[in-house]
């Protein structure tokens, strides 16, 4: 029995206008989704070219969920996106060439080759870099919200977690603390139905992850994660509710992880029909169709956007490949921060 509210799909343009998006915003969302996918597709190529060391993880299928939520955040808000949430980084403005540099372990990546994959973030864009351990960043997101509450700022923290990671204690402690204190945080569950090879019924025993929100004293909402506008609308509501003192919300974005867990995994354990069914719901194609049908996106407009994205990514790749490998002499630097660093605008 579902307990969480199931969000309606978004239909008309007027509905979207009400939710605060004009035509430029709508195109920006489209562009961000294209960039997101494009970055990850090119990542795959780099990987096959042997230019990405280690493993490689992407979020194909999660573009709408990631971009939708990030679009609903204000610039003063902060978040802790994960390995399927490239769209959050893109929407918040990280430059793709830096991501490629990160992928390839180059000196100009956000971690200067110290970490890989999406284990990066720009604090100046309000994002805090993830660690591998899932969902260890949720308590950190709650801590950001705690700071906002203490200082009575109208800011919101957004914390992401996978449906697999919902099983870990950190999820519980984060939601318990946020719920009892009504902190301004929004929890986003990227429910892509698989945790590596583990299906959802071995991770939780409710119908939806969002059904658990009630156990923490706040609302849970299940959203079709391929519907970027529905995600945006629900995220906007939740973010503004948090901002105005209404406490946390748990949003569950339901998608399918459209690739293996990482590049080495062929996902043999995922039933073929599942991939087929969800392929019909490709979030980008779905949104493109919507824009054509509802926002009168013209051929020229569409073309301009996709050409722009292609050029952006091409230039980004070139620039990233020019970035050198990090100097080994830097290895020992920065294990500890220096007092001066606290005076920089890092800390917001």
């Amino acid at each position: 029995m579902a307990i969480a509210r199931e969000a309606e799909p978004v239909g008309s343009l007027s509905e979207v206008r009400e939710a605060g998006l004009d035509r430029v915003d709508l195109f920006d969302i489209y562009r961000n989704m294209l960039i997101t996918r494009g970055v990850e597709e090119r990542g795959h190529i780099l990987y096959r070219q042997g230019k990405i060391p280690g493993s490689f993880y992407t979020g194909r299928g999660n573009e709408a969920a990631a971009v939708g939520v990030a679009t609903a955040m204000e610039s003063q808000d902060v978040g802790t996106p994960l390995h399927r949430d490239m769209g959050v980084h893109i929407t918040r403005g990280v430059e793709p060439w830096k991501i490629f540099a990160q992928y390839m372990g180059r000196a100009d990546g956000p971690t200067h080759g110290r970490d890989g994959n999406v284990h990066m973030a720009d604090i100046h864009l309000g994002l805090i870099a993830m660690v591998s351990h899932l969902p260890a960043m949720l308590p950190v997101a709650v801590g950001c919200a705690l700071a906002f509450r203490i200082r009575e700022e109208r800011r919101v923290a957004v914390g992401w977690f996978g449906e697999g990671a919902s099983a870990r204690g950190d999820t519980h402690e984060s939601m318990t603390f946020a719920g009892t204190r009504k902190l301004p945080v929004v929890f986003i569950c990227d429910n892509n139905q698989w945790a590596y090879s583990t299906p959802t019924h071995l991770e939780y025993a409710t119908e939806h992850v969002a059904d658990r929100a009630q156990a923490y004293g706040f609302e849970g909402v299940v959203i079709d994660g391929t519907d970027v506008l529905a995600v945006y609308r629900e995220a906007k509501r939740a973010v503004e509710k948090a901002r105005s003192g209404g406490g946390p919300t748990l949003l569950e974005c339901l998608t399918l992880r459209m690739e293996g867990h990482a590049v080495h995994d062929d996902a043999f354990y995922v039933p073929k029909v599942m991939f087929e069914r969800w392929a019909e719901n490709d979030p980008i194609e779905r949104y493109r169709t919507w824009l054509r049908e509802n926002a009168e996106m013209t051929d020229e407009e569409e073309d301009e956007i996709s050409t722009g994205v292609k050029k952006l990514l091409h230039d980004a790749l070139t620039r990233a490949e020019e970035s050198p490998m990090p100097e080994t002499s830097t290895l020992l630097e920065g294990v500890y921060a220096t007092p001066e660093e606290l005076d920089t605008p890092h800390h917001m």
Partner: protein
Amino acid sequence: MAEMTYLQAISDGLRTEMRRDDRVFVIGEDVGVYGGAFKVTLGFQEEFGPWRVIDAPLAETAIMGGATGAAIMGMRPVAEMQFADFVSCAWDHLVTVAAKQHWRVGIPVPIVLRLPSGGGFSGGPFHSQNPESSFAHIPGLKCVCPATPEDAKGLLISAIEDPNPVLFFEHKHLYRRIKTEVPEERYTTPIGKARTHREGRDISVITWGAMVYTAEEAAQQLENDGVSVEIIDLRTIMPWDKAAVLESARKTSKVLVLHEDTHTGGFGAEIAATIAEEAFEDLDGPVRRVTAPDTPVPFSPPLEKAYIPQVEDVVKGLRELAEY
């Protein structure tokens, strides 16, 4: 100057910083209305309000993760574990997130974690441990273990100022037993600098925390034998003051490392190994370690006494070294 117990000095340091800097806040179990299990924050909630003295749920990862998030957003959290033993429940957060965030992505995590630690009052296996060695091994964390009221206050203020995660191990057995003159004004004691607790010529004892007092008593006994013992109170074990330790070792040529934590893989091993390597040519005897044995901390008084290094144990170790 004012007479303060070790505990009062900690309260005083914390209160000083909270009055001076409204980014500093306290979070932990029962730290508010109750003032903390040891009453370090007694009266704080009245003075600073419920959002700067936060009664957390019984959830150590939420407390520490919460502290980290707030710190990244510009606050200066001082979190309390009810007993140091319970920090095991926040181990993952500390070693995975807090310790590595700056090196990985350049974000400082200025958090302080207050850890009432140590035995000596029949607290049993889960209320008496000294887990500093486990954390000193993790790059990115700092570990502070003051022995005197003056250092406790000064080091706590330094810890709050420090842009890194600092674990502040306060020894419960010193809380009310040790009372000395402490400056009333604000001051800092540098993290990473040892203190010569007692000057001597013949043997060096390297120690920290409550064991400083055990060493002192032992040194007095050795004085009667005509052996002059130097005591180096490390004060902080990560970073530890290698220079001061090596200097003392080179001076006396004989060293005993003393700690209350268990033997194998305790931080004493790092100190002994370093001395034995870097002062190899200056040593007139092997570096001895006097520590707790490799067992959990027992509850019953005779067992606990056999577990925690006693003055006699140190005297014995020192005599052996003296005769070496």
